[in-house]
């Protein structure tokens, strides 16, 4: 038998892993098994261009399905892997079919965290993680439709922006005292709250949902203090849970993600993991991280592919993220966790363009760049090269950001 790599999942990580295996010179078989009906597609546009109808499903495909076939990659769609049998080196699919692997890559991703309050299973309560989820929302949304979004994180806010484009009446409910509380500074939260309000979104903070109301179909949500909001549609965006069950059941360590080393390898020399499902050691503060982002999925997948081909490639890049809402292009470099001060560049209380630099002492940890692509590119270089920064320069909008690199 020709040697075979099996990739469980058909995600960004999986698509990159398969590509990188060929680029690394893997001559054996590659089998990719995904439980969704589609070839690997881009998830980020789901809450943006796809939700508001600017992009179609075909344009979301990372590459056409035929491209995999042309490169000798077998893609099995709509089939769930239910077990990894490590002693037999086989995966077991839900129909009982077994396929043998020489090397295995787990790119199982994450799933939307479910709302658990009474009424959460009513018709009209939606999640936003897959193409099918968004198709379900689009089938139901019409102009003037009342949409309540539970969760003021990136998914919730991006959805709100897309739904406003469709003319929906949108409310966002956030349990904390500000939107994006987990990931940004108060100034950035206040900025997003202002822009969404200007765009006609009603934002309710300190609002926890205790029940979803309706008989068979949702009609509203009830808050902890008894307040009620009418809704024709509810979208829940309260985070994701990594899909670690296959790894865990086969005896591999998983704790907030499948544990891998800096080469994307698990403790089993024949099993790798990459993407949203993987938890890796990071040089950022010497801790373990599980990141939910496409760049992370792609870079980690490359390390996994290299490892499978017998070449160690360390994954230690600085993370970055992006979020498009209305005319706002937010690009985030680094991780702000652990910052002790925020320095602003530009005006955040009016207009739509500024930078929030996150520092610990004089060390730059991260930057939220809103309609500031040049600063974003500079921030990534500052982080990658661990350059020291001059705080006075960072906040001076008259200084070309290029100058930050020449200190």
């Amino acid at each position: 038998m020709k040697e075979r790599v099996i990739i469980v999942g058909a995600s960004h990580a999986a698509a990159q892993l398969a590509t990188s295996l060929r680029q690394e010179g893997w001559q054996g078989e590659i089998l990719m098994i995904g439980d969704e009906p589609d070839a690997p597609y881009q998830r980020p546009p789901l809450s943006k261009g796809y939700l508001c109808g600017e992009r179609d499903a075909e344009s979301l495909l990372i590459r056409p399905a035929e491209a995999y076939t042309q490169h000798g990659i077998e893609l099995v769609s709509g089939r769930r892997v239910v077990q990894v049998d490590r002693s037999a080196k086989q995966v077991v699919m839900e129909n009982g079919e077994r396929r043998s692997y020489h090397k295995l890559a787990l790119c199982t991703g994450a799933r939307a965290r479910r709302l658990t309050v009474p009424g959460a299973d009513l018709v009209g309560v939606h999640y936003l993680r897959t193409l099918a989820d968004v198709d379900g929302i689009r089938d139901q949304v019409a102009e003037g439709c009342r949409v309540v979004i539970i969760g003021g994180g990136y998914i919730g806010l991006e959805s709100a922006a897309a739904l406003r484009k469709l003319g929906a009446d949108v409310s966002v409910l956030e349990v904390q005292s500000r939107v994006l509380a987990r990931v940004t500074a108060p100034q950035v939260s206040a900025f997003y709250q202002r822009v969404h309000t200007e765009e006609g979104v009603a934002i309710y903070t300190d609002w926890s949902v205790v029940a979803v109301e309706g008989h068979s179909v949702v009609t509203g949500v009830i808050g902890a203090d008894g307040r009620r909001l009418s809704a024709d549609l509810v979208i829940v965006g309260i985070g994701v849970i990594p899909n670690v069950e296959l790894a865990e059941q086969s005896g591999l360590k998983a704790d907030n993600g499948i544990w891998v080393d800096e080469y994307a390898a698990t403790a089993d020399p024949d099993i790798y993991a990459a993407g949203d499902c993987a938890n890796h050691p990071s040089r950022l503060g010497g801790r373990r991280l599980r990141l939910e982002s496409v760049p992370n999925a792609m870079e980690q997948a490359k390390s996994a592919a290299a490892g499978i081909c017998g070449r160690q490639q360390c994954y230690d890049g600085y993370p970055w993220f992006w979020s498009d809402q209305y005319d706002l292009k937010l690009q985030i470099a680094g991780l702000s966790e652990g910052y002790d001060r925020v320095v602003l560049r530009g005006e955040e209380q009016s207009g739509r363009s500024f930078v929030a630099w996150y520092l610990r002492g004089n060390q730059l940890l991260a930057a939220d760049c809103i309609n500031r692509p040049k600063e974003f590119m500079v921030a990534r270089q500052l982080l990658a090269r661990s350059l020291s920064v001059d705080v006075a320069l960072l906040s001076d909008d008259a200084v070309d950001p290029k100058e930050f690199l020449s200190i």
Partner: protein
Amino acid sequence: MPIIHYIEPNGAEYEVEVPVGHTVMQGAVDNMIDGILAECGGVCSCATCHCYVDEEWYGRVGEPQGAEKMMLEMVPSPEPTSRLSCQIKVTEALDGLVVRLPSSQY
């Protein structure tokens, strides 16, 4: 269908057909050409699809605008004909286009 030529830093050349309306970035990704990472999927957010447009073609491709222009100022090894390939839409007029890929994207 227009043919686009992608030249890797080591001189290896790929000649692929890219449908009108697709981007030069998508043409590379569809054909698994190394060197165009396209982490953001074509929304001009990452600058990992940087390419050098052949001088002869640059006039027809045109200059970068807005966010693309600002990001190109800060990519590793920019050149006067640098573009982000996700922002170049393929047209019949670009049949035969030649782009070189930077070594920093490997």
